[in-house]
């Protein structure tokens, strides 16, 4: 049987990806350019007995998502820059309380209200460093409507597997444009559920590290009574100020994402003509699409250009970026901001090659011509 294909906006593809992943709760607040995610789910979730709630504000939306997740639901919210800024404290809460949830950020310009209907990529550092305190972050940056579908599924998988908030960031261009999206059959994409406790309620501790860096999570209302707090806590979930326990907890929350096995599991990149490339265009999201166009044009002119496209932006693809910096004469980093991920590229390249940015924040996409010009300039 032919698969279902529909022409979908990026935001619509996101909503359908969430449903595929088993999302049963959405808590949100209207904000351009993400609102279509909420609109689709307000119609689709009740059809499967799921819950949609439009909360009183962005913070309340994030709170409702964490609350729902603790009952065992796969929970989602979708917003844009101003909303993500408001949600930051509770994103940190989800980090320390180790509560799985997915946050969609359809990026527009900024700061503040900025240009609500224009695209931007200026929240990429915020995705890592937005909430206060030390913590790990996972952020995915799909570049097409099909990929928004599959990366939303992967975001839920990673959130459930690593017990933490996962952000999916895509810009307004991909959020609002329409492309044919093929709906995967059930089972075609992997769907991961959180690990349930293997011990009974009496022996259960919500942060029991004897099960590894990611302890099993029981659902409220399933016979397990336990305590959840935003304070630094011991394995039993209760607050502690004991130095060794706090230190171990903080470090584990980062190592659960940054240990080599987890990194290999979480990282995802696409490379195009990088094997012999003398210049690497390092780009993500819709800007990577302009970059691929630029690579093709440059190759026609005999310039050995290649594209490195992170699909997982955080944790940062340090190893591969460093390798490419050693291989290439130059790395060009186009992004719709005034220079964010280029700082990370510079950090890991450690001076191994020239690095130049292409930056634009006027509400217009970076076009291939701008990238081509910068590549020629830098070589």
């Amino acid at each position, binding site marked *: 049987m032919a698969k279902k294909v529909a022409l979908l906006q990026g935001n619509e593809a996101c909503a359908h990806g969430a449903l595929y992943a088993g999302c049963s709760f959405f808590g949100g607040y209207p904000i351009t350019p993400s609102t279509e995610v909420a609109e689709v789910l307000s119609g689709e979730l009740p059809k499967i*007995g799921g*819950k949609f*709630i439009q909360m009183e504000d962005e913070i309340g939306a994030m*709170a*409702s998502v964490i609350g729902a997740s603790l009952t065992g639901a796969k*929970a989602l919210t979708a917003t844009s820059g101003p909303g993500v800024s408001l949600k930051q404290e509770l994103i940190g809460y989800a980090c320390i309380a180790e509560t799985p949830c997915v946050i969609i950020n359809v990026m527009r310009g900024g700061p503040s209200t900025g240009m609500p209907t224009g695209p931007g990529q200026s929240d990429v550092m915020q995705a890592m460093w937005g909430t206060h305190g030390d913590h790990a972050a996972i952020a995915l940056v799909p570049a097409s409507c099909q990929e928004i579908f599959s990366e939303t599924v992967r975001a839920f998988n990673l959130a459930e597997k690593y017990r933490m908030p996962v952000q999916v960031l895509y810009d307004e261009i991909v959020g609002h444009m329409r492309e044919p999206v093929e709906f995967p059959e059930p089972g075609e994409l992997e769907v991961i559920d959180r690990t349930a406790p293997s011990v009974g309620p009496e022996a259960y501790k919500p942060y029991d590290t004897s099960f590894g860096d990611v302890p099993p999570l029981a659902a409220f*209302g399933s016979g397990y009574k336990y305590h959840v707090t935003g304070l630094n806590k011991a394995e039993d979930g209760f607050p502690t100020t004991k130095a060794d326990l706090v230190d171990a907890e903080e470090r584990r929350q980062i190592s659960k994402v940054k240990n080599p096995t987890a990194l290999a599991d979480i990282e995802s990149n696409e490379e195009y003509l990088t094997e012999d490339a003398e210049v690497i265009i390092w780009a993500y999201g819709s800007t990577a699409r302009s970059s691929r166009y630029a690579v093709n044009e440059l190759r026609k002119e005999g310039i050995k250009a290649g594209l490195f496209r992170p699909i997982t932006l955080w944790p940062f693809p340090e190893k591969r970026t460093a390798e490419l910096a050693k291989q290439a004469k130059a790395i060009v980093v186009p992004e719709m901001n005034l220079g964010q991920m280029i700082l990370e590229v510079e950090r890991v390249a450690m001076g191994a090659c020239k690095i130049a940015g292409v930056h634009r924040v006027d509400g217009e996409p970076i076009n291939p011509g701008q990238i081509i010009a910068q590549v020629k300039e830098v070589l």
Partner: protein
Amino acid sequence: MAYDYDKSIRPGKLPHIWCPGCGHGIVMKGLIRAMDTCELDRDNTAIVSGIGCASRLPGYLDACTLHTAHGRAAAFATGVKMAKPEMNVIVCGGDGDGTAIGGNHFIHACRRNIDMTYVIMNNYIYGMTGGQFSPCTPTGDKASTTPYGNPDPIFDISKLAIGAGATFVARTTAFHATQIDKLITEGIKHKGLAVIEVLDDCPTTYGRRNKFRSVVDMMKRLKDISVPVAAASKMTAEQLEGKTLTGILHQEDKPEYTAMYKEVIKRAGGAA
């Protein structure tokens, strides 16, 4: 025979953090008795709080307890209740947490009339941070951030709740220990958002700045200002000057939010 509170308290979690003379412990005992009276299954009961002294209460109780961020208890609780409507959801916290930083979530929980019981301990002050004025600190009173007397008008929490649409609103005080569990019991039994405001005392950060010589003085004040609603109906405006009504202030039947959402699911053709 003494009431058995121990079966509801998590082993090893006492002593609590509250100062001697603080009324929060009285409220906690009232809540335990109310939960017992209603025969709540603690496996299936979530107790959700924000930040502050009063918000430490859930940690002592043996249930599914969720100590959230400052002001956000009602919104977390809404997520819990929506996702699992079969759970009993109790929210507790203080006046600053619930009506200042959490004011928006508080009024919207009232508006939705979602089936939760919100026990709000109003001790007129931000206690945990050392006694700054809250939206409930009486005008003219002293707090660490009102050294010349508080210029702010106050929120009447119960009136706020009624105005926002809560369908059960009651008020009592930490002095009226036996009324606390009766009102919370009524609130738990009520289908919809129930607010139980308990006027409370903070001898450490409010009392000492406002010329209360002892906890007993503070308790006496709570007793003196309280007038049961029934008695108030027979009193003149002059007699009611400076008094606070206690008992069930408002009760009505209105559709409950998760029940309304069940209808949405039905209309969408889904199975709840």
